[in-house]
């Protein structure tokens, strides 16, 4: 992934980012307060210690050598205090910083879990990864090093200025003028360097893009003996970056000598003017001696501020990206209907009290007196049942219509009513889609890539929000069902099997975290995975490596099926579950699949027509519309799109 190598990213909304960062730092309020106090002590001790040159020199000049031991002991005590404070604040700071960073990482990860899938569609994994690697790191580093340094530099600068004024305010005016010149230069230079850095950034982007493309295609490069040509192209871009980078870096590096030069000039002028004043008896030598030491010190915090400033701005830019991600709109939920168990393996949707499910799954308030007689209404006559709600008790809504209340048994009845949907606004992928699946039915979707097959299944479990129409599940609009419960009732097997680091049993248990060993085994048996698992070196305890590299594609697919089996959902979604498996292996898996599908409403998307033959209904999709629907036999007799596909005259792509 192209890393964020933005050498000089500037935060866009500094105040907001700072406010949020400060809020996080508030988590370690007490520690940071301690740090601030200790840093102040340490900085003041440093200043006082340096200042002690003056009383010592003056005491000696004025012939009071007996003061020397006392002054030295005082200095030592001050310094010891400073050192101990430094020990204290560095240790406290490390812990405070880690606490803050820990919280940021936790909240960031937690929030990312709540983001809708559309976010992951448009954001590359590498970019999200770089939140955790680059951005959190820069923030952590800034906290580790900069906070204390910043307080210290601030105190030192203010303190030095005060001491300078106290020692000799006339000379200090010179220093102030020089500092102003320095500040102006830094500002001017900063605004000019942007151009150079933009050029560097462009060259870097061009090189990164090239590297990414070519390294991804490295095997093709080898096959075509294209290495030399590649190196030539790379060399060109590499050189471009070198030249642009050299300009930018040279420019950035002029900052230090410029500040150093102004510092020296300041020192020289102060020395000369001071000497003239001293000769004329307007300052004592001791004051001048310690004064010039301070003048040199005065330049130091300014230098430090410059580098700290860049560092901090960089960190704040990182923090801004983090907070930006944390402010991303999470998935909308808002569902109030929940899933409750009603028996060993039976579940029901629980409608919140005082509400009822009406036509098209709408949730409406009940008008108060639930007429007892309404319970006797035949479900088919109830408007709610028109969308599939099999009510056990009913009531009347304000407009007098009968609505379903209390518990609605979970059966797996899914209907689409005039559904419109687009991944991006204004581009509909599905238009006015209508379909229904009765409990236990097997519905298959066929069509080329981009026709909208996966989209349909993604809408049932609310991976995405529809733009128009309704989707009802057992008569309830899916938007009224608590998302977690909705998804818990839907089992999904994806084309890509994602295995997690852990044992085989852990991976199956992902479907039901509290599944017993027996349940895991039973699920594996149901999925026809038990036999191969038992042949693995450690059976169910065999460790699966990151992407399941030690398992074949077919075996991984079987694990995914076992995972669904252990979750035991009433509705199944099989999204090209077997398309990456060869036909012979598919045959072997088929038995497991058939067993799992038994008695469940199943939506299946298939790449091979052979797998959808015995579906109750096959939907042929094209450009977001169902162009043909019916059983296998009906569709063949139609001599349409399905027939062409079946004959191999067209290919699903």
């Amino acid at each position, binding site marked *: 992934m192209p890393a964020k190598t933005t050498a000089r990213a500037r935060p866009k909304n500094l105040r907001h980012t700072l406010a949020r960062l400060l809020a996080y730092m508030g988590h370690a309020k007490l520690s940071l307060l301690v740090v601030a106090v200790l840093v102040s002590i340490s900085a003041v001790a440093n200043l006082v210690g340096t200042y002690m040159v003056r009383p010592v020199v003056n005491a000696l000049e004025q012939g009071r050598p007996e003061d020397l031991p006392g002054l030295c002991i005082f*200095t030592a005590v001050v310094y010891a205090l400073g050192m101990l404070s430094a020990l204290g604040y560095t240790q406290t700071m490390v812990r405070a910083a880690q606490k803050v960073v*820990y919280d940021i990482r936790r909240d960031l990860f937690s929030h990312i879990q709540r983001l809708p899938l559309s976010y992951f569609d448009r954001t590359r994994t590498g970019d999200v990864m770089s939140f955790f690697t680059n951005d959190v790191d820069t923030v952590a580093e800034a906290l580790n090093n900069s906070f204390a340094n910043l307080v210290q530099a601030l105190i030192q600068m203010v303190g030095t200025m005060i001491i300078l004024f106290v020692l000799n305010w006339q000379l200090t005016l010179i220093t102030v003028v020089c500092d102003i010149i320095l500040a102006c230069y830094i500002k001017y230079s900063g605004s000019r360097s942007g151009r150079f850095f933009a050029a560097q950034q462009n060259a870097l982007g061009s090189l990164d893009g090239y590297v990414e493309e070519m390294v991804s295609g490295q095997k093709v490069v080898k096959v075509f003996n294209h290495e030399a040509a590649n190196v030539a192209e790379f060399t060109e871009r590499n050189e471009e970056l070198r030249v642009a980078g050299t300009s930018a870096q040279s420019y950035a590096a002029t900052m230090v000598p410029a500040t150093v030069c102004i510092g020296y000039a300041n020192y020289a002028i102060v020395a000369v003017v001071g000497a003239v004043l001293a000769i004329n008896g307007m300052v004592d030598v001791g004051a001048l001696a310690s004064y010039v030491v301070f003048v040199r010190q005065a330049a130091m915090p300014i230098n430090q501020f410059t580098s700290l400033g860049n560092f901090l701005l960089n960190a704040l830019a990182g923090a801004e990206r983090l907070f930006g991600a944390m402010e991303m709109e999470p998935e909308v939920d808002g569902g109030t209907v929940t899933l409750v168990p009603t028996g060993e393996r039976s579940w029901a949707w629980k409608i919140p009290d005082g509400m009822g499910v009406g036509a098209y799954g709408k949730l409406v308030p009940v008008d108060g007196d639930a007429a007892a007689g309404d319970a006797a209404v035949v479900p088919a006559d109830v408007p709610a049942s028109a969308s599939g709600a099999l009510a056990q008790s009913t009531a009347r809504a304000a407009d007098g219509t009968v609505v379903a209340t209390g518990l609605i048994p979970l059966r797996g009845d899914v209907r689409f009513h005039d559904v419109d949907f687009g991944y991006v606004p204004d581009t509909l992928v599905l238009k006015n889609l209508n379909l229904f699946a009765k409990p236990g039915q097997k519905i298959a979707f066929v069509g080329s890539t981009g026709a909208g097959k996966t989209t349909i299944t993604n809408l049932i479990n609310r991976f995405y929000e529809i733009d128009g129409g309704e989707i009802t599940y057992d008569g309830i609009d899916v938007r009224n069902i608590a998302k977690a419960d909705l998804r818990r009732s839907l089992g999904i097997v994806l084309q890509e099997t994602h295995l997690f680091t852990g044992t085989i049993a852990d991976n199956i248990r992902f479907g039901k975290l509290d599944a017993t060993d027996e349940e895991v085994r039973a699920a594996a048996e149901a999925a026809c995975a038990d036999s191969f698992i038992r042949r693995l070196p450690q059976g169910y305890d065999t460790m699966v490596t990151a992407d399941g590299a030690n398992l074949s594609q077919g075996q991984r697919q079987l694990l995914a099926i076992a995972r669904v089996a252990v979750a035991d959902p009433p509705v199944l979604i099989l999204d090209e579950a077997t398309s990456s498996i060869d036909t012979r292996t598919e045959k072997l898996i088929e038995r497991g699949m058939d067993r799992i599908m038994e008695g469940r409403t199943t939506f299946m998307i298939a790449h091979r027509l052979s797998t959808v033959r015995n579906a109750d209904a096959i939907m042929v999709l094209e450009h977001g519309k169902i162009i043909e629907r019916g059983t296998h036999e009906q569709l063949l007799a139609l001599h349409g799109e399905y027939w062409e596909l079946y004959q191999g005259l067209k290919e699903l792509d």
Partner: protein
Amino acid sequence: MPELRRLLSYMGPYRRDALLGALAVTLETSIELIIPLLMARIIDEGIVERDLGIVFSQGALMLVCALVSLALGLAYARFAARVAMGLGANLRQAEYEKIQTFAFGNIDRYQTSSLVTRLTTDITVIQNAVSNGFRPMIRGPVILLMGLFYACSMNMELAGVFFVVLPALAVALGLITFRVLPLYRTLQASMDDLNGAVQEDLTAMRAVKAYVREDHERNVFAHVNGALGKRSTTTFSTAVLNVPMHQLAMYTTATLVLWIGGNMIVAGRLTVGELTSFMSYVLQIMNSLMMISNVFLLLTRALTSVRRVGEVLDEKPELALPAPDRAIAAVPDGSIEFRHVDFKYSAGAESNVLDDIDLTIPAGATVGILGGTGSGKSSLVQLICRLYDPSAGTVLVGGHDVRDYDLPALRDAVGIVLQNNVLFSGTIRDNLRWGAPEAADSELLHACELACADEFLGRIGGLDGVLGQGGAGVSGGQKQRLCIARTLLKHPRVMIFDDSTSAVDMATDAKIRANLASLSDVTCITIAQRITSVMDADLIVVLNDGRVHACGTHDELLAHDTIYQEIYASQMEHAQAEAAAPADTPAAEGGERDAR
């Protein structure tokens, strides 16, 4: 440090800039150290003697010093930038060239994203370390040495303090570093764990959401997050001990100098001006030590990147090339022979991917390879163009061991259309010319015709049509056909198709095969999922678990081989069912045959 030596060795022509830059910094630093001397003269000779001439001349000298140091600083800025960027460019170049020599086996060991990071971010980290660390790296030691020298020459007795404090400080810093280095290593491991957890979560996001496992993932993350937090605290709390340690040394020195110096002034063996200057040396020397240890920390952080880049640079290309003078420069014909070939991807792997393969394919033959996922089909064909070397046995092409050929010559003669193929950004013409750099448009178009890519060429802008990164802009089936055309342009003696028409419809697939059959003298090897794609090959090889299960023609295999029968049944079942049905549609199987 071997890492440092590596960096130096890649500096190349920029070594001159490094030396000049170092010289500039050294001079600049020396000037900085002269300034306290000038100051001492202003106080001791100017003020005490009331000599304005000395005050002004010394002041003017200071201004000159300021200007000279500005000039030196600007020069240094230029040199340092050239060094840092030049070193980065050289490393990147070397790394990229190294990757070009990688065999498939080497490529497999790295993830693409990891290789990209090593070429981009890691180099940037190194560059930053060099450009930020260059000045203090030179300045620190120079100030230390010169400061000590001046301090000693100013007053040996007073300078004695340094020789007590500095060694003690060195020992203390050494101890801290000694403790911290291994901690950094474990810290890195914790960081890897955290990144691994995030990556796993992100790639499996659909599964996580579908199973409502967000809380489970949060727990997993909390675990690694906590571990990282704890490790970081341990590591950094040890590392920051160097701050109070430095202060202890600096403050001890300052107090001692004040005490001893004060007494010396009382005794008349030291002037006030000297004490003042000496104090500024104390500050400078101690700061220089801080500088050195900061540079050290900066470099430690970059060290990981140097090591990661180093891993790529040190990677040994897996294929041993024959001596150029003994390498066979041309492949005489397209015959292929496998003699007791075993193969596994890494020496440490438990079982072979291919086991005792014996196979003879005459020149010009058409061969089909069938087998389940993971049966070793792709591995088998990749040995022919020597993308990997067998772990035992010999692969011969044109009667010679593939290891005896000049590698580019072999790969020019054996064209392979990879399963996971890619096109690159650029025009269609650019892409096709990968196969034949000098080819005229007419040749390119002819290849497109053979690969049935001419049908859609007009729709994507012809040869001038532009593709995006990774060949974006064409569909899967179109991409496969362009990839075939690209390989055809090499005019190879052996052509290998690794499941390369999977997204092409059957009719077009058949047409491509017919076109290829018209090429004389070319051995064609096709890996396919569809039995119809290989049915009329001269020889069909059925692989199972890395072994040749059966070899023969379609009819022979259908009669005798169980696996072939099963595959046939799994694909033909619906067609046969259809044929048996009274429907008035032609049977799929027949339909496909007709299409031939």
